């Protein structure tokens, strides 16, 4: 039996009230007031589609043996790299073994569901097994655009497998149409859309029903068979129209989370599925529709195994861990929409030496240090001579991953001198549970809330962006346990 073995979700901690955006930018288009309800989830300044995908994947594989993982499929329309595989970086951050399959799925908002289909079929054909499928997006609308208000950022991940599946994969149906409602050329940062009537009346309400009917016909099943239907579409009247078309009662339709997170691009159907699985019961039949230049329709049937899967932090857990992003200008700065002056100190030039990067890949991406096989002392970064003065053995080291450990704040500061796009820069020395110490940046926290001995977990984040060479640099940061 092939299907989903585990799932996870991720929503960034910061939420921007849409009214706040409208207050600053409503003057350009008063009609945007209709889109100004609720809030949108905003990636922190050190997050992007890739880091969110890693966070969701970590939530998904929590409790599973990383050495069993056979691949990673990453879907997004906002990859940090055009050439350098993004899924490969995710695999590194998850400290997966080398002999895995990795693929980027891009170009369309349905790339998330396409990745899921590809993973299911790979497992079914025995081509690969235990594939992490993650979808994440960080789309931008120009200041004052409807998209700026609509779009939100989040991620979801699934473990595709032929073993112990919690939801059996029942098949898929796809439509491939060069129907363009939104477009972004390869040199553009911002989404550009055609008029709402086109998107809604010729897009969502035509193509989604066509795809659902195609699926029902192909597998000779009825819509009534499904206990949950998941489809993206942020137009409320269009949703009502589609629901009515298929006679779907409100409890059968999965909420889009538009009011709490926003339109999540390639991650939209995946986060909805991750959320649906949190509450699913054995026997539930779930239909998932991915939309964008056509459609993917997938169906799953929940199994008894779902009762055995340990509770994930999931979309709900991360949704609950929220903090207001009060300043709209901070959002603009974090997403590099406007240029700010972070001082001359911020102009320091740090090169990426790719040969060093390769040599130290386990250290940088996997947050792997060493553990001395003589005295069991964990140490980071890796040491050739054991740092324990009572040991000092040479070359007695084995890989030791700190990424999935917890720790405690040993000492800390909030630094207003260090160049930062969100001062003060908070960092401190962290003592790892189980031994070891390292000084890390802290993230998703406020200085006033931190104290010595506070527990922390670790999160894969952007450590800096090399503007000259267009390289996003990643490493791990400490997240003080204020919320989740």
């Amino acid at each position, binding site marked *: 039996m092939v299907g989903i073995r585990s799932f996870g979700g991720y929503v960034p901690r910061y939420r921007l009230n849409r009214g706040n955006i409208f207050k600053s930018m409503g003057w350009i288009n008063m009609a945007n007031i209709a889109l100004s309800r609720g809030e949108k989830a905003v990636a922190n300044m050190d997050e992007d589609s890739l880091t969110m995908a890693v966070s969701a994947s970590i939530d998904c594989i929590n409790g599973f043996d990383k050495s069993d993982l056979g691949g990673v499929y990453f879907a997004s329309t906002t990859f940090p790299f055009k050439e350098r595989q993004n899924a490969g970086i995710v695999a590194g951050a998850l400290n997966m073994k080398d002999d895995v399959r990795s693929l980027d799925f891009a170009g369309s908002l349905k790339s998330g569901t396409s990745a899921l289909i590809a993973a299911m079929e790979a497992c079914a054909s025995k081509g690969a097994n235990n594939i992490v499928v993650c979808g994440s997006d960080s789309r931008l609308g120009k200041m004052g655009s409807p998209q700026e208000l609509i779009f939100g950022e989040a991620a979801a991940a699934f473990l595709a497998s032929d073993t112990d599946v919690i939801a059996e994969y029942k098949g898929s149906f796809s439509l491939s149409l060069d129907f363009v409602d939104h477009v972004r050329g390869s040199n553009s940062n911002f989404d550009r859309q055609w008029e709402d009537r086109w998107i809604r009346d010729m897009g969502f309400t035509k193509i989604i029903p066509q795809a659902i009917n195609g699926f029902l016909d192909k597998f000779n099943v009825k819509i009534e068979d499904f206990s949950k239907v998941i489809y993206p579409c942020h137009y409320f009247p269009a949703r009502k129209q589609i629901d009515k078309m298929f006679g779907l009662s409100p409890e059968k339709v999965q909420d889009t989370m538009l009011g709490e997170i926003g339109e999540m691009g390639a991650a939209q159907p995946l986060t909805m599925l991750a959320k649906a699985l949190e509450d699913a019961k054995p026997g539930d039949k779930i239909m998932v529709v991915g939309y964008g230049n056509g459609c993917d329709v997938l169906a799953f049937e929940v199994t008894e195994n779902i009762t055995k899967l340990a509770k994930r932090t999931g979309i709900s857990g991360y949704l609950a861990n929220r903090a207001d992003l009060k300043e709209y200008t901070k959002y603009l700065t974090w997403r590099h929409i406007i240029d700010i002056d972070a*001082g*001359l*100190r911020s102009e*320091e030039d*740090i*090169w*990426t*030496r790719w040969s*060093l*990067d390769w040599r*130290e890949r386990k*250290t*940088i991406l996997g947050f792997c240090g060493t553990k001395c096989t003589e005295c069991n*002392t964990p*140490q*980071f*970064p890796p*040491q050739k001579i054991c*740092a*324990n*003065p009572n040991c000092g053995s040479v070359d007695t080291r084995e890989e030791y991953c700190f990424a999935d450990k917890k720790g405690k704040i*040993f*000492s*800390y*500061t*909030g*630094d*207003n*001198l*260090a*160049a*930062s796009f969100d001062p*003060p*820069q908070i*960092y*401190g*020395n962290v*003592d790892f549970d189980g*031994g*070891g*110490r*390292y*000084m*890390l*940046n802290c993230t998703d926290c406020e*200085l006033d809330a931190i104290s*010595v*001995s506070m527990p922390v977990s670790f999160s894969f984040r952007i*450590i*800096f962006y090399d503007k000259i060479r267009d390289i996003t*640099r990643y*490493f791990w940061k400490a997240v003080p346990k204020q919320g989740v």
Partner: protein
Amino acid sequence: MAEGIRDKVVVLGMGCTNFGERWDASGEDLMVDAFIDCLKDAEIDKNDIGAAWLGSCMPDISIGSTALPCAKALKLPFIPVSRVENACATGSEAFRSACYAVASGVVDIALAIGVEKIKDTGYGGLPIAGFSGQLANLIGANTSAPGMFAQLASGYEAKYNVPMETLKQAMAHISWKSHENGAMNPKAHLRKRVTIEKILAAPMIAYPLGLFDCCGVSDGSAAAIVTTPEIAKSIKKNQELVKVKALQIAVSSGEESICNEYDGASIWTTEIASKRAYKEAGISDPRQDISLFDVHDCFSITEFSTYEDLGISKKGKAVDDVLEGFYDLHGNGIPCQTDGGLKCFGHPIGASGLRMLFEMYNQLLGRHPEERQIKNPKFGLTHNLGGQPINNVVSINILGT
């Protein structure tokens, strides 16, 4: 069995420029000024120098690497000149090298000169590039010097359960005292007195360090000429000899930053280097024997911790000593930062260690005006600390009569 440096080398002469925002002078200009003063004080000719050591720490922003900028600026006559660097202990490292050369009998007279031209960075605080290596650039925290040392305060607060408010009071007193001393020193960069209230109300640089908890940043140069006691006596027949009593240095092994034993409320290397220095100098009780000292007060919390790490204040008790005025210029204890310290001189890295020795040298010779001269000093100690609390280089030098 090694005997150590005690009484084998004496300081024959010293020179020190005014420290400050020396927009007018290049690093080479500053070296020449310190050197000419030093030569005059030593009463020797340039050609008497057998070897020289240059301390400079930031070649990119300053004079460049190698010893060439020094040899060429000073027009040294093709003698051996070496450039040394060991973070904030760079100046002391140049001094140590020159002393070792004399003590070994390889040269009769040696020069140590330190310089840094930092104000050409264009921004406040020390530049951060170049210290950590390429891997650390990619996996290190986004730090600054105050942020790294500020963590001593959270570590101390946690270990000794001293409220941050009390700690801040002691830190403010430390900076107040140094400004009082610096105000009297014509070579200092910052020469204004500052009230405790103003210190406590200053903008935050890196929690809990406010503006006045941080030392200045400046340009400057200082130099020393060292020789044997015999040669010194023959040149300066009527001057008391200022002898080198101890030269010690301790460098972190990685244990503080990687393992979990280090307490975060002290500097191990200061404890280790000072114990070795006291032994080398023949000092059994530093609180009794040291007459004055100049420590690496890059930040007030660093000076605070150093009082304990040097074994002068008891562990966990420095607050009491500080607030009782034990370290004030005319208190009943041991005056610290009698020249104003890094607080008022700023920190041209290569020059700082030699600038501190310049103060000890002049105090031991009784050369200062009465208002800031210490009575009958016997031992003067200098302390440099480069790096950060969990990873650093500490040098301890002791001069005496």
